[in-house]
């Protein structure tokens, strides 16, 4: 008995949830859906007279947010996965008019923007109809049944109709929502070309990373070949010569040995610099926490540290984060005229977050071949993100996120 009762309760709860979700869809299809559509429609012609650069990105991004919300609902409520079709935001978006124009161009040239817009229009009637259906079925069916049974016991002929409505509301509700999700996917999912383009982008960024590490290996090989290796050869030569002449010409032998010693010192110094570039020893010895502290101690300006790491990220992530932070701090010292800087390092579920800021003059822009662009590449190799805010006049804040897991702290 209690099984039956709890089953009914569960069914009622599920039905209530489905109805609520359907109503949410219906309401959202109208507001903000319809205003967003019309604002976009009206502001687009304004682009011709130039005024449109302000409202167009705003309304189109609003449409985009609404569409993304529906993609999320489709996945969470009906298990229909709709991939994001948008092209990546362009680099070097500045804050002024040029930035706005760049943003307009980025939005308007993306076919997904236009399909989103079309979806917003078509979605209004479809969303209202399909969204309201489960709640309508449940309410109309229940009201009809109850009034039929209690108020007009004579007319039982209409009962099957109301029973049918109730059943549609209760049993077919989830199916209706799923149909709606599938309808949304028709316009909101990426087209085949867009999927191919995003795959191309992935391949490109991967091959950039592969190229960069191959170039790095070549540099290391060349440094070893021209540096330490050459010095060791000359060291061996000096010692060999000294061996030859030590009996006949002790003075020359002494001179050669001194040269050999100098050579060995130079070789060690070369190796030390090379190793520092590959993997700083202090990172191996102290982990990211200690290495960033060591970095801060060695800079000619005070660096305030807030480091909260309960464990250690995987070695490659540690190394990428270290070099990124080191590069940003080097930029601070070189370009910002800052009097002090700060580093915040924390682990949030699933990602390492590093934020570096200063009180300098700002105006930092990632340029091709520049340090910031190099960090972007390093961070992108781990699917990480970097954001730079650096208004002219300062301050500059660089935020980096690297997805990773944390291993338990070393005790």
């Amino acid at each position, binding site marked *: 008995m209690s099984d039956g009762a709890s089953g009914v309760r569960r069914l009622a709860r599920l039905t209530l949830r489905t109805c609520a979700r359907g109503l949410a869809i219906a309401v959202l299809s109208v507001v903000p859906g319809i205003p967003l559509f019309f604002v976009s429609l009206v502001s687009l012609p304004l682009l011709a007279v130039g005024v449109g650069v302000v409202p167009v990105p705003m309304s189109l991004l609003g449409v985009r947010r609404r569409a993304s919300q529906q993609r999320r609902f489709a996945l969470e409520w009906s298990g229909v996965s709709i991939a994001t079709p948008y092209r990546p935001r362009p680099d070097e978006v500045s804050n002024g008019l040029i930035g706005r124009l760049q943003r307009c161009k980025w939005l308007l040239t993306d076919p997904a923007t236009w399909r989103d817009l079309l979806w917003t229009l078509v979605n209004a009637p479809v969303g209202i109809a399909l969204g309201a259906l489960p709640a309508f079925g449940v309410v109309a069916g229940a009201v009809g049944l109850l009034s039929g049974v209690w108020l007009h016991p004579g007319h039982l002929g209409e009962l099957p109709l109301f029973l049918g409505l109730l059943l549609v509301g209760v049993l077919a509700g989830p199916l209706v929502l799923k149909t709606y999700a599938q309808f949304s996917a028709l316009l909101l999912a990426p087209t085949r070309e867009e999927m191919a383009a995003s795959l191309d982008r992935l391949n490109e960024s991967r091959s950039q990373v592969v190229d960069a590490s191959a170039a790095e290996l070549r540099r290391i090989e060349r440094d070893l070949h021209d540096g330490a290796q050459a010095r060791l050869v000359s060291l061996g030569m000096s010692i060999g010569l000294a061996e030859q002449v030590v009996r006949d010409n002790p003075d020359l032998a002494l001179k050669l040995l001194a040269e050999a010693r100098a050579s060995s010192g130079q070789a060690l110094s070369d190796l030390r610099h090379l190793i520092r570039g590959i993997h700083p020893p202090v990172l191996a010895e102290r982990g990211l926490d200690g290495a960033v502290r060591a970095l801060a*101690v060695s800079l000619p300006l005070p660096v305030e540290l807030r480091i909260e790491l309960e464990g250690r990220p995987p070695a490659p992530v540690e190394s990428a984060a270290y070099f990124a932070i080191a590069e940003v701090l080097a930029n601070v010292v070189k370009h910002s005229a800052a009097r002090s800087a700060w580093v915040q390092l924390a682990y949030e579920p699933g990602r390492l977050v590093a934020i570096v800021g200063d009180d300098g003059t700002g105006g930092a822009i990632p340029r091709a071949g520049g340090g910031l662009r190099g960090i972007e590449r390093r961070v992108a190799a781990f699917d990480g993100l970097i954001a730079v805010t650096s208004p002219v006049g300062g301050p500059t804040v660089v935020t980096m996120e690297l997805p990773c897991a944390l291993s338990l702290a070393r005790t």
Partner: protein
Amino acid sequence: MRVVLGEDLTLLRDGLIRLLTAYDMEVVEAVDNGPELLRALVTHRPDVAVVDVRLPPTFTDEGLNAAIEARSQVPGLPVLVLSQHVEPLYARELLSGGIGGLGYLLKDRVSDVRRFIEAVRIVAGGGTAMDPEVISLLMARRARDEPLRRLTPREREVLALMAEGRTNAGIATRLVVTEKAVSKHINNIFNKLDLYPGGDDNRRVLAVLAYLNA
């Protein structure tokens, strides 16, 4: 002179033993890992310890930690720390653990045998022997500070040599000037940096190091 040695690479350990023995020092124990090193340092209480920063079992900074821990148990225990690389942070940690009888050198310096042995003796005598690279890193860190910018290039040179732990005579030889000229520079430095110029060579070295490390 009794020496405890902490170095895990056999080649270097044997080389150092040979070197120290050749200069009439007695290596009472040579160990190859951090925990053993701490035990050896505390039980033998040697006249000086020569310690590699990176040691088993973790191959991180075991040696440095053992040296710092030993100096906290046996205050003033003379320790000369060797490493393939130098970090201002490590220098700071070593210096904050007690005054005098302290050295921090790149391993490269071992090849200049006479100066290396001199450094061992200075540390054993309660003095200081800092690697020129440590000092240049510490100076670079304060390069923007007003007091240091008031020094002349020559005075900065003298300051760096003093911070390495050299005596007035040593600085004079190095810069090819008279000892009198050196002490004049040193007076100027102490005036400009607002340091109290008291006492012997060693006290002055420590004052300078404390200043750079602040």
